[in-house]
């Protein structure tokens, strides 16, 4: 059986307090923490998903709070292969912000990035709270921009795994791309040396370019 592992850099985007970290916590640990404090000290979280004949290793980057004052660094979404743009179904402002992030990703991120639009906190509606972002409105945005679309509840766990499976499937459908492995080599400098073209090197095309671009 083929056990190839593809590493995927996935970034989280969305207004503060829409539940970005909670979605990840649910996905990675099947856990939920009420009034969760922003994560401290984790460079990124990883979680493997079996996709039949191969495994996808999600390397999930949190904003580390840098979105709070609009101070996310371009480095954050550089070379991301997938992004979750999260909003809160009870907060229209967070959906406006989500539109902004989709636009930003199309302008700044890699051209073939897979984006999932995620309306979170569905449990509030199920418990009688008022929905403020219509499902149709979000579906329209997803359709126009070519996004995957999910409504989730990190609190109940509803639909959370489906988000990552959906991204995994879409990635599996794409022609095999060089396995990025940003999580490797945590103990030292990663050197992309032209003379030893490293197949695990994150930016395959660039390490090959050195051989003859003169």
């Amino acid at each position: 059986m083929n056990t190839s592992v593809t590493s995927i850099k996935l970034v989280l985007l969305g207004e503060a307090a829409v539940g970005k970290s909670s979605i990840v916590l649910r996905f990675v640990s099947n856990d939920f923490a009420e009034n969760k404090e922003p994560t401290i000290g984790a460079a990124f979280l990883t979680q493997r998903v079996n996709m039949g004949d191969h495994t996808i290793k999600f390397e999930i980057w949190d904003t580390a709070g840098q979105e709070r004052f609009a101070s996310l660094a371009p480095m954050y979404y550089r070379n991301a292969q997938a992004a979750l743009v999260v909003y809160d179904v009870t907060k229209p402002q967070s959906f406006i912000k989500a539109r902004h992030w989709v636009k930003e990703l199309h302008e700044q991120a890699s051209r073939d990035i897979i984006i999932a639009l995620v309306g979170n906190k569905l449990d509030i509606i199920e418990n009688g709270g008022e929905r403020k972002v219509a499902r149709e409105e979000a579906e329209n945005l997803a359709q126009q921009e070519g996004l995957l679309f999910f409504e989730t509840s990190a609190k109940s766990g509803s639909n959370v795994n489906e988000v990552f499976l959906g991204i995994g499937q879409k990635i599996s459908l794409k022609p095999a791309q060089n396995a990025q492995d940003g999580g490797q080599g945590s103990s030292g400098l990663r050197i992309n040396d032209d003379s030893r073209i490293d197949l695990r090197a994150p930016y395959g095309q660039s390490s090959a370019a050195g051989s003859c671009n003169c």
Partner: protein
Amino acid sequence: MDEEYDVIVLGTGLTECILSGLLSVDGKKVLHIDKQDHYGGESASVALSQLYQKFKQNPVSKDEIETKFGRDRDWSVDLIPKFLMADGELTKILVHTDVTRYIDFKQVAGSYVYNKGKIYKVPANELEAISSPLMGIFEKRRMKRFLEWIGEYQEDNLRTHQGLDLDKNTMDEVYYKFGLGASTKDFIGHSMALWTNDDYLQQPARSSFERIVLYLQSVARYGKSPYLYPLYGLGELPQGFARLSAIYGGTYMLNTPVEKVLYGEDGKFEGVTTKEGTARAPVVIADPTYFPEKCKSTGQKVIRAICVLKHPVPNTGNADSVQLIIPQSQVGRQNDIYVAVMSDSHNVVAKGHYLAIVSTIIETDKPHIELEPAFKLLGSIEERFMGIAELFEPKESGAADNVYLSRSYDSSSHFESMTDDVKDIYFRVTGHPLVLKKRSQEDEEDE
């Protein structure tokens, strides 16, 4: 917002971002502010359109730029050119803080030196020294003996010192002992020890010795040259350390000018007021642009010319990246001219282009002419952006008012003086020296 912090950091240049990251990891509550809307301050990497805005009088449209030079966003041009020494302090800080997780590095393909009208590869070990056309047959033997002395030197074994005392003998005396000639001294002092002028000759040999060891050990790390360079440019470095700081709880606010600095009756720093409100902290760390009145000129000005080429630099074996040093004595100057060359293999230019950043310390009132010897070596230049930067340093240590200021980025080709500044500020702020230790593994979730 009205919040209390342990440290406020102003400016997101590399020095400030490293300090912010280190202090956050130490458990300090850090607020990091930049008046500009992007990371990096003076040490940012910018797109071509930003270079036009910054350096050219007449506006050039983005369309026009892209027709000529390809996609604007493929460009990431360093405002201050430098390389990392593979075995230098910045490399160590990157590894110990795990910021390497966010940045990929490549080797710089070659280290070259200008000598009598020609460009030569800098011999970096005994083998290369023996085959280098830089030296005649007898000089090669002398150079070999010099390198052997460096390699075998042990502090506590007097026999390996060969009668030399690093703290008493000057470097010139060391050269004399090995019988090395003027042009060999030139490339040892300038392209291996990386001194920018000849003052070192009359100083005790120890610091030159240490610099040569750093050079040789850096070459030995990965082979081709002693230098490393991050993909997407040096601007990735401050961003990486800012992320480290944020991950450990640091708060980031870009695009936030400081409206007022607050001091107590004792003259000590108390906080800053911005559009977000007042933030208080007993200590501030900042780059010189935030407290010009507390800085003075070092008396040095650096001219930097960013040149866009469509070909590799001639006579460098079509290398995709190069450090080229023109020693001062070769062109009748007091300070060396540096040329840093990068290409699309480091993802800093659109395909098929090369960047050559030429810099030196200004000696005359016609600084652009001082760079001519370097321009001549580059072949045809498609576009050129020139700027002059005055170098500043703090007037005081910061002990009196708790305002700790960094120094401007100097003209050296690497980050060693910058990391000295980081360690020095760290010591002054915390009262204890910076000890690099590995971050605990439990932070790094992996199944």
